[in-house]
């Protein structure tokens, strides 16, 4: 984990990591078969050798791999992620258009998974053999075991087709409402994708928090809290939960990378206009600058998320906070 005691070191580490990500992704893409020009030419319905050579020169594809890499890195360094062959627009602009939708989806799903998972975990820790506990364990295991696209399709079937209370796809209606209603509309569209994405994680959070709370509730300091005369709610939700949450926070940090991967699938199923769907489409189109840009952006997001987790971790666990001193 990062060490925020020295922000400069942290920054240097992050920049180094980002550079490594850029170089590695670039080289990986070189290994992939197929050439963007041939895809474009194919879509144009064929072109002469001369035109093809011209296009390759225009995109810089006639240079050596090393040269291309150096050019790319030096451009990325000044915030230029290149130009999308397909969309005819700068990659950074494309990404920035799609980023909010993905962040919205990922954070809603994560919040849902953590809050619901933890709540269920705590309830079942208090009554490990209760009915609610077993019911929720089964449901969350189904969510965990089922493939995301299957869960997504089932939810679509149930709540968009059989009982149509949620829209089937997209983020807003065709004729988007204005003002406050716009947000209501987005929220309405968000429900099924967020639930689908969350379904993968609810089981892990409920099981983690259940184990963690069962352990915490048997600790001596819980008996101390009871001996003080605190009501049971305070004992569990103040003294217990603050400790029980520590492993949950750790897991949030570890899961960010996976979360973006899951978002790609969900965005595809629900036609959610986010980075994941852009990545999926760009791969089909061999839109290399866009793919590279998205990979870099997700890496940066994961790094930011890890730094935030680290901060949260210090907030909930004073034993770590004081190690800085």
């Amino acid at each position, binding site marked *: 984990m990062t060490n925020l005691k020295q922000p400069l070191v942290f920054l240097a580490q992050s920049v180094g990591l980002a550079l490594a990500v850029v170089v590695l992704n670039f080289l990986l893409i070189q290994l992939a078969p197929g050439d963007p020009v041939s895809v474009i030419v194919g879509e144009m319905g064929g072109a002469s050798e001369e035109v093809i050579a011209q296009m390759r020169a225009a995109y810089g594809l006639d240079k050596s791999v090393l040269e291309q890499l150096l050019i790319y890195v030096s451009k990325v360094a000044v915030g230029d992620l290149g130009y999308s062959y397909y969309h005819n627009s700068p990659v950074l602009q494309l990404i920035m258009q799609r980023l909010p939708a993905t962040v919205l989806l990922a954070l809603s799903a994560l919040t849902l998974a953590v809050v619901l998972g933890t709540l269920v975990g705590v309830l079942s820790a208090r009554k490990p053999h209760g009915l609610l506990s077993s019911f929720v364990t089964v449901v969350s295991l189904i969510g965990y075991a089922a493939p995301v696209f299957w869960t997504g399709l089932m939810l679509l079937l149930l709540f968009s087709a059989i009982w149509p209370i949620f829209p089937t796809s997209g983020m807003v209606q065709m004729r988007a409402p204005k003002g406050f209603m716009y947000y209501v509309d987005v929220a309405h569209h968000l429900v099924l994708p967020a639930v689908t994405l969350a379904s993968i994680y609810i089981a892990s959070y409920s099981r983690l928090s259940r184990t963690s709370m069962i352990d915490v509730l048997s600790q*001596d*300091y819980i008996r101390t809290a009871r*001996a*003080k*005369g605190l009501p049971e709610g305070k004992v569990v939700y103040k003294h217990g939960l603050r*400790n029980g949450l520590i492993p949950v926070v750790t897991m949030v940090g570890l899961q960010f990378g996976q979360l973006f991967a899951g978002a790609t699938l969900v965005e595809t199923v629900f036609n959610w206009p986010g980075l994941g769907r852009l990545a999926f489409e760009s791969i089909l189109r061999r839109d290399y600058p866009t793919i590279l840009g998205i990979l870099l952006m997700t890496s940066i997001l994961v790094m930011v998320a890890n730094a935030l987790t680290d901060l949260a971790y210090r907030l909930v666990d*004073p034993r770590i906070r004081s190690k800085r001193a």
Partner: protein
Amino acid sequence: MSTAPLLEVTDLVVEVDNGKRILPVLDGVTFSVDAGRTLGLVGESGCGKSMTALAIMGLLPQGFRVKSGDIKLDGKSLLSMGPDALRKLRGSVMSMVFQEPMTSLNPVFTVGDQIGEALRLHEHLNAADARTRAIEMLRAVQIPAPEERVDNYPHQLSGGMRQRVMIAMALACRPRLLICDEPTTALDVTVQAQIFSLLETLQKEMGTSIILITHDLGAVAEMADDVAVLYAGKRAEAGPVATILDNPSHPYTRGLMSCTPRLRLGSAALTPGHTLAEVRGMVPPLGQFEAGCRFSPRCPMADAHCHAAPPPDVHLGASQTVLCWKVTQEQAA
């Protein structure tokens, strides 16, 4: 001063359901604690000292329950009280210091928060007043630089300091009864002595009654006014310290005494696993007690009668009670 004792435990029977069988944990335990006095509760490991304390506090672990008997605090039965009424007494009228100072404090809250919590709950103090009182309490338990320590987390304190914090927490609302369950077993001898003298000082100031649970008869000799000796869930003997330590009547008490040649603090703690020199054997596990006197398998004086029938409680003089056939026979003679 009222003549009725502050705490009266009468014929307390506690049992545990371990899933397969119901086993007796405490069987007819009777003792009382007068206001402002200290009762030493002694016995080897596993005799039921902690369970007695937890039964009084209403904090018996899952599976344990009080089957019969009564616990009266200030004349009011704690057992017939609703759980909420009992909860309101905990931390205000009666409180407890636990055996394990290292793990009994919550690692994620400052000691100030943890001491202030009882004050905010029972005396409805606001955050600032609770903090001021927490600092006063830290000063009272002789923690240096209390204004700084109040913001410390438990991991920043030594074991001795943590136990002082526990005492500060337990005494914050000036309870009438303080139960200390082996408050010093985890600490080294010098710190033990400091904690005991601290308890004595605070007791004089507040008039609190103390139940001191300990393995250490030296500590009892120094601290307690009365003693109750537990053996295998039964109260073997009880009475004033001077009487019992000078003239122990129960063979088990005598055995305990012989392990502590000079009755000084820390001179011989009966640590778990430590066997008594005079009294061979160990405390039997729950549910494997003799039909007669539970101590008879280890007793050097036991005869057929002792093995066959449980002894009655005999009064010796005004305040001493003993559970032993031999004493009954001597009296009859």
